[in-house]
């Protein structure tokens, strides 16, 4: 039996959804115009006023926002309400040293948590479930989002957080957890670890997995489902728009329903910015309809995917997006963390190395490996082994603090990093996703 958290809206006919979107969009544009000087200027440059936006049909007229805008407006430039109304921030990596900081009012958090609650119920969760949230808590949206969703559904929530595999397994087994929320690579790792400890799928109490924040293949899904004895569902989101739960999979496991009463999705040509018809592959763009503190209009996600309005057997009417097929920028998602090559370049230069480097990402036993080859330079070379290793450690620590994940540094001889037509190949992604 299909379960819904908010059945009426989740199964609303398209006309009803459009009606809601039209009404909310007009209000939201006015809210942004009145409160966000940065975006008002962008609209004025296009000779637009809120009066020009009467319905979703006018959405294409509005200017885009991108990660570059977030960097420029950092930290408060896109905040749309008084600080007294804001209750929290979350943050994700930016393209260089600065991070993206997103603000939330209590209403924003409630809306976001409801989106996650829809995802949990679409996966079959109820208030009788014990839900272990093994996403990271803190600035990352994963932990807070699913934790909030789990509360809304009424699950017994285990705010486990990431890491400490033995403790993760102990809680799953002792408290008989039935739902697991984490990144797919961590789910795979946890599955392998449980297998090694002799837990066969029939002994593992888990039934449902809600996995997101990084790309994963159908093969990986089947692997995880088999080792843990669960059904695994994808969930999509981004900090800029709210966090996980912007879109989620239903029992069909074929594409993720976008919560259209809260977010308008468009697919555009990443080069021209032109809106593309349904079913065409392009860059996903979101407009946040309800967020008060950080209401981004036409935010370019850089994720490449397609949308479909094909009828879904789960009964939900909201448009579905496919798994993102890639990026229209150079961002990498490694172990669930956003990594931009430009961030690595910044750290290398700050530490006295040349900007000659190569990132090698692979997936071994369903876990991402992250190596950076760095060319040795005359400045960084000494004939003292300990000194070179100490400098390498400083570099590794600098990268860890910039990126949030650990990279393995390999010092290589100068001019050994592949160059094609004079341009270095910065990223080698061997993962088959």
């Amino acid at each position: 039996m299909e379960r819904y958290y908010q059945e009426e809206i989740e199964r609303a006919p398209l006309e009803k959804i459009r009606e809601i979107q039209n009404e909310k969009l007009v209000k939201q544009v006015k809210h942004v115009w009145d409160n966000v000087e940065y975006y008002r200027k962008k609209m004025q440059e296009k000779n637009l006023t809120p009066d020009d936006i009467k319905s979703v049909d006018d959405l294409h007229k509005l200017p885009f926002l991108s990660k570059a805008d977030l960097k420029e407006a950092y930290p408060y430039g896109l905040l749309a309400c008084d600080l007294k109304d804001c209750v929290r921030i979350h943050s994700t990596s930016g393209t260089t040293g600065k991070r993206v900081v997103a603000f939330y009012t209590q209403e924003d958090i409630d809306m976001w948590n409801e989106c996650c609650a829809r995802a949990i119920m679409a996966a079959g969760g109820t208030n009788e479930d014990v839900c272990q949230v093994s996403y990271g808590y803190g600035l990352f949206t994963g932990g807070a989002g699913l934790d909030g969703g789990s509360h809304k559904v009424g699950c017994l929530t285990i705010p486990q957080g990431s890491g400490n595999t033995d403790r993760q397994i102990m809680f799953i087994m002792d408290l008989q957890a039935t739902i697991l929320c984490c990144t797919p690579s961590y789910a795979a790792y946890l599955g392998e670890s449980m297998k090694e400890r002799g837990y066969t799928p029939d002994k593992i109490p888990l039934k449902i997995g809600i996995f997101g924040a990084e790309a994963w293949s159908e093969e990986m899904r089947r692997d995880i489902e088999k080792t843990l004895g669960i059904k695994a569902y994808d969930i999509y989101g981004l900090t800029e728009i709210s966090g996980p739960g912007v879109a989620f999979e239903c029992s069909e496991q074929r594409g993720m329903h976008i919560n259209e009463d809260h977010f308008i999705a468009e697919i555009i040509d990443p080069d021209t910015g032109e809106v593309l018809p349904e079913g065409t592959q392009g860059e996903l763009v979101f407009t946040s309809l309800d967020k008060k503190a950080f209401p981004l209009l036409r935010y370019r996600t850089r994720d490449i995917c397609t949308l479909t309005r094909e009828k879904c057997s789960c009964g939900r009417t909201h448009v579905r997006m496919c798994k993102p097929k890639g990026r229209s920028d150079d961002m990498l998602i490694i172990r669930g963390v956003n990594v931009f090559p430009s961030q690595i370049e910044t750290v290398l230069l700050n530490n006295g190395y040349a900007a000659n480097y190569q990132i090698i990402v692979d997936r071994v036993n369903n876990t991402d490996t992250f190596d950076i080859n760095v060319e040795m330079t005359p400045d960084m070379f000494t004939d003292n082994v300990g000194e070179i290793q100490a400098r390498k450690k400083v570099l590794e620590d600098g990268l860890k603090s910039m990126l949030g994940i650990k990279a393995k540094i390999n010092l290589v001889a100068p001019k050994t990093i592949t160059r094609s037509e004079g341009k270095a190949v910065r990223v080698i992604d061997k993962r088959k996703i």
Partner: protein
Amino acid sequence: MSVNQVSVFLENKPGTLSKLTSVLAKHNINIRALSLADTNDFGIVRMLVNDVYEATNVLKEENFVAKFTPVLAYKISDETGSLDELLKFFSESEINIEYMYAFAGKKDAYMIFRVNDTKKSESILTAKGLKSLTQEELSEV
């Protein structure tokens, strides 16, 4: 007088050392003494060669990272106990040896030392009557 050693960065993988030696062979550079420091992912070759400037230049041209390092060279007789005698001077003077290596000639042996303050260590040892070899003296060995 300290002598110049050539230190070269090498990746720890097959073929890198022979690439180095082939460059030196091509340019007629003779290696007089050599030692290799290795870690899991890289190595450092330390060599005394007949022409340090030429060696460093050609290595740079061939994309190696190479630099001079001042080291102290001492001649000792090739017989039991002579290294022990030499090292007593270092320990009495509290000179810390970062690394050392050796090569044997027809009748004498030669010890190469890397210490943290080359000039200071050298003057202390000279005062004790221990004279290090010059670049010229070493070339004639």
